[in-house]
């Protein structure tokens, strides 16, 4: 009962906030379109699966278009769209130039769907419910193995209560390749020159120290069980499982808690490239949580099948506009207006036989 009340409350909050900053361009996909493919297939990132499942079931009710999405991982999503075995791919890490070059169907667009954050989570029994403050410098130091103890001077400088914790830090990272690791290592590479030069940023890297856990649940399980450990998980996962989450210092110098709002701000009021193929970590927005990334769907700019082109472009439009209203309740940060405006340009550039794929009623 309590749960129901909670979720009703959360939903009304979402509706309220959605109407407060109504997204222009939403409500334009009103139902099915004539000549539209009724089945679409997509594959890729596991991170947005929950959101996509919700979206696609709502979208099927609205338009009658069924979307079959397989969460096989970002690497698989990139491979599938490059081989043209799906109508759209999905990824948490942008495709590299080399990957874009070998795609069989020409130019691929990165259309953002939501933002995700990766948060440090820790287990220090003495702290109880107290939180910790991390900086890029301290996180990189710990994950490089340069900071080995909780009472290291650098950590104590931001967290005086750690002075008494004379314990080794047990570092926990992902053992499987993942977009979560990509965002985390991209952040460490952005803030630490040593990390960028020795380890680098990717879905899987050679970790200098630590234990590997499989999946978010593996890392969270390790951290929960191992006293004095420090790991990282997706923000949504941390919230749902009530893990101890640390604050991280943003570029403006504030220590910021990872709320969906603070995550959305990473792409608001900052310079975004037109192709939106950008790692958002260490955002210039002083109120933004710094360890953040887009999750994209991948679509060919030049479509070959008119019915599918129409369906994919309408789907992308609906998800990046109307769909955003579902994000917060599911713990995904919605796209800020800046990002939606850039996404609109990308969706309008999808073509079929030299003409825009998106109907003129939506594109205007």
């Amino acid at each position, binding site marked *: 009962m309590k749960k129901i009340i909670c979720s009703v409350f959360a939903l009304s909050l979402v509706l309220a906030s959605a109407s407060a900053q109504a997204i222009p361009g939403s409500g334009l996909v009103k139902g099915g379109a004539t000549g539209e493919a009724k089945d679409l297939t997509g594959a890729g990132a596991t991170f947005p699966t929950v959101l996509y499942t919700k979206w696609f079931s709502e979208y099927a009710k609205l338009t009658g278009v069924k979307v079959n999405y397989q969460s096989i991982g970002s690497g698989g999503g990139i491979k599938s769209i490059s081989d043209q075995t799906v109508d759209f791919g999905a990824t948490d890490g942008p495709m590299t130039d080399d990957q874009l070059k070998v795609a069989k169907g020409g130019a691929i667009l990165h259309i953002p769907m939501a933002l995700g954050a990766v948060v440090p989570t820790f287990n220090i029994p003495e702290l109880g419910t107290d939180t910790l403050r991390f900086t890029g410098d301290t996180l990189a130091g710990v994950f490089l193995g340069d900071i080995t103890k909780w009472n290291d001077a650098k950590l104590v400088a931001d967290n005086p209560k750690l002075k008494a914790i004379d314990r080794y830090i047990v570092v926990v990272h992902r*053992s*499987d390749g993942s977009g979560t690791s990509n965002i985390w290592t991209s952040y460490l590479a952005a803030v630490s020159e040593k990390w960028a030069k020795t380890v*680098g940023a*990717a879905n*899987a*890297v*050679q970790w200098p120290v630590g*234990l*590997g856990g499989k999946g978010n649940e593996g890392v969270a*399980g390790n951290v929960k069980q191992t006293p004095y450990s420090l790991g990282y998980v997706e923000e949504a996962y941390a919230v749902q499982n009530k893990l101890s989450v640390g604050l991280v210092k943003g570029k403006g110098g504030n220590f910021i808690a990872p709320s969906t709002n603070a995550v959305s701000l990473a792409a608001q009021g900052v310079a975004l490239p037109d192709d939106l193929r950008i790692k958002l970590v260490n955002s210039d927005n002083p109120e933004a949580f710094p360890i953040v990334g887009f999750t994209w769907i991948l679509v060919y700019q030049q479509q070959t099948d008119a019915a599918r082109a129409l369906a994919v472009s309408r789907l992308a439009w609906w998800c990046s506009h109307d769909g955003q209203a579902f994000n917060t309740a599911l713990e995904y940060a919605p796209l800020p207006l800046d990002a939606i405006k850039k996404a609109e340009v990308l969706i309008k550039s999808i073509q079929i036989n030299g003409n825009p794929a998106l109907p003129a009623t939506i594109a205007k």
Partner: protein
Amino acid sequence: MTLKTTAAPGSQKVGDPGDRVFSFILRAASSIVLLILIAFIVLLVIDSRESISRFGLSFLSSSKWNPVETEINKIAFGALPFIFGTVVTSLLALILATPLAIGSAIFVSEYSPPWIGKPVAFIIELLVAIPSVAYGIWGLFVLVPLMRDVVEPFLQSTLGKIPVIGLLFVGPPMGQDLLTGGVVLAIMILPTILSLSREVIAQVPRLQKEGMLALGATRWEVLTKAVLPYARPGIIGASMLGLARAIGETMAVTMVIGNSSTKITPSLLTPGYTISSAIANQFTEADSPIYFSAIVELGLVLLIVASVFNILSRILVMRLVGKGGGSHA
């Protein structure tokens, strides 16, 4: 007339069409198994060509596994920590599980009254059917804390004090290490070895045992002189099947071994990595061709490691059977 068409006993002639069809089916079935194996090896070699030609033997001897090109660290793939982890955990599992399994197999089939033996045997066979991911979850949430808080500190304070053996137990106990991986594997292969050994021991001819008893032998003498020599090849075969399961086991080990390939040390308390864990962990996100190729080569290496163990155990069984037969005659 009709009598003449039936084959004489012992005749090799296969004249009946039904017989010919049946023998063709049998031949086809066995050659399909062979073909699958060949296709398997061919595919692994083809897909790992890039990695084989680029890294050569250093793939087996290097312990650098770096899928990301940075200024200081070039891309490099060396599987030594994975091979080491696979061999150590599998052998550890074999060493821990075999005595226990044989001991309880003897108890169940020779010493216990049927009302204990039968249910125990049944429960053990149920254990074989538990999926490995269930062992993994149990390992992560029950075994790991137990190892970290009780077993490993105990081992350090006892065996850890002995000069050379102590090197096996150096380092802070984290619970996720080669030792825990070995223990989980031991628990997993125990039922396999046990149930097979029990079957083999049950096959020892009654007359042999009763003959020994009639000569006034004690139970111990019956066991060591009549039962075990007869069952020995079968028991070794059972252990080798257990070992084969341990080498290929993936999920359960992945969840408790720590998945760290940074260093190889003599200590069993350091986090490790096995070949199959590495494949399972990294295959889905291996995004560059060389990375993919290296992962496939890991599969090839795993096949080789398993074959080496298999051949060694064949040799062992053959030598022991030779000896056992000799002493019997």
